[in-house]
């Protein structure tokens, strides 16, 4: 009985520890959100203030600082590149699962994985030169092209793993009925794998949204995305903690919401289905 009591007590302590550690882990994000509702004076006060009169002023300032233009660029770059990656990736995954011989399919998978492993910095120099020559620097179109390339491997390997799980009988039924490949993909494969494909698309949106490397190297004034706005905020206007916090809160809202929603698929998306 004593042992049971000790065990119960230690269980309770472990639970408390778990809550405490998770709280500590996300504390920086929580504190940032809180700081966004402060005045600038309250934001730099030491000791930090936990209770204060919340204000929406900083969010207003962030909105008025050209937020909508950056937001537009971020949304278009993320959505269009994801759509393009879906259009290119779904047929490729279909071919790999249902049409290609095993060996060519495996080769293709290896190639897809290896492109995702290539350091971005390695292709930056040639891309920069080509893009400059084509006069496409600081163009939203360029970001879309680059993000599509960045997300295509992710989409192919996730789509592939969902297609492998589809019940073969249904597809064979469609083939027997004489459905064309396009019909099979559009009417059967995509609807049946929809939840997985949606998750893959959401992850692809997060990656494009969170990118800083290509956004900072390939854009200046016409096509910069939200992460660039945040970085420019501090360097141009000195240190405005509350304003930066408010703006940052707005920026991370999208990936956090999507990521928690698609949490289950997160690991799979990153590790190419090596771990389901």
């Amino acid at each position, binding site marked *: 009985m004593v042992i049971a009591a000790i065990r119960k007590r230690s269980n309770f302590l472990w639970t408390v520890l*778990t*809550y405490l*550690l*998770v709280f500590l*882990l*996300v504390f*920086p*994000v929580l*504190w940032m959100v809180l700081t966004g509702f402060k005045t600038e004076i309250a934001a730099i006060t*030491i000791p*930090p203030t936990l209770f204060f009169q919340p204000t929406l002023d900083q969010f207003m300032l962030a909105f008025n600082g050209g937020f909508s233009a950056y937001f537009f660029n971020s949304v278009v770059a993320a959505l269009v590149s994801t759509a393009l990656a879906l259009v*290119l*990736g779904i*047929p*490729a995954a*279909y071919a790999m699962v*249902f*049409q*290609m*011989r095993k060996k060519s399919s495996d080769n*293709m998978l290896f190639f897809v994985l290896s492109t995702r492993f*290539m*350091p*971005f*910095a*390695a*292709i*930056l*120099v*040639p*891309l*920069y030169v*080509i893009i400059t020559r084509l006069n496409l620097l600081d163009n939203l179109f360029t970001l879309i092209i*680059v993000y*599509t*390339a960045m997300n295509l491997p992710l989409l*192919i390997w996730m789509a592939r793993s969902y297609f492998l799980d589809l019940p073969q*009988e249904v597809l*064979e039924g469609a*083939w027997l009925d004489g459905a064309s490949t396009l019909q099979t993909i559009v009417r059967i494969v995509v609807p049946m794998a929809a939840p997985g494909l949606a998750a893959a698309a959401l992850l692809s949106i997060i990656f494009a*949204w*969170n990118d*800083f*490397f290509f956004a900072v*190297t390939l854009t200046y004034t016409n096509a910069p995305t*939200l992460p660039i706005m945040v*970085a420019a905020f*501090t360097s141009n206007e000195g240190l405005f*903690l509350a304003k*930066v*916090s408010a703006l*940052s809160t707005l920026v*991370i809202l999208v*990936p*956090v919401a999507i*990521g928690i929603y698609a*949490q289950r698929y*997160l690991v799979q998306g990153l*590790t190419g289905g090596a771990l*389901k």
Partner: protein
Amino acid sequence: MSQANQAVQIPTPPVMKKRAVPTAALRKERTWLHLPALAYMIVLTQISFLLAVWFSLHSWNLLVPSEGFPFVGLANYVNTFVNDPNFWPIMGNTLQLVAGSIILALIAGTVLALLLNRPIWGRNVLRGIATVPFLVTPSVMALIWKDLFLSPTSGMVNWLLHFIGIPNVAWFSAFPLQSVIFIVAWEWTPFVMLVILAGLQTVPGEVLEAAKVDGANAFTTFWRIVFPLLRKPYQIAVLFGTIFIFQTFGEIYVTTAGGPGISTNTLPYYTYRTALNSFQIGQAATLGVIGVVVAILAARGMLRLMTERTEAERG
């Protein structure tokens, strides 16, 4: 899957055979459906890489167009390896960043995974919340770390430390690389946690029960029983963590911009600076090619190390 169907066919060939034909026939069909995606990836990554190799064999400075584009052979490589006093320290920084962040993330991620694998109230919500550092925009959160937490004047970390008598620390000047490592580890902890949690689902409950019956304590159970069963998840966490952390860029850009001096320059960051700050395209392409070789060697080395250990244990 098609093999499974074929195995079922055997007892009733006439009906099932007809259904299995399209699969076999279609598999052999020539297909072009993967070609657009393949072409896209080849143009943007492979051809770009070949161009980088080509550029790396030339001297090319965009700021001095009169010098043109002369072929210099391997001079850029010699220059990088032998004459550039920054190169080897920067390789050291890169190694420290990758190894330091992944080790910290492995420890913290394992602790969180084990704690969140217990049946506690609100477990799924907690898991979701714990994922947040991994989802937030890296460059944005690095800035928040710098201004809200590690700032020498108004940072919360210094405020907390003064309670135990530690005077103000200017984190990004005194410990620049360590500060970046800490931020990167914070971001990657949830990734390790998710991978290990997924792995823990495959550890059979009976094994743990048996250990408990034998009187093993929690630490022994983890170290002797669970940890060896998690080899694959750890391999995946290390492999993918390393490859992605190697690419760290925004976190460095917004916190230290590579400084002070070159103390937080990593190979990718140095490549970027050589290309877009000093516009030495040939030299930057060389660094990019070296980066690819390093990434490939690291990935292959890790894979080999992992498979060798597996075989040794089998034998």
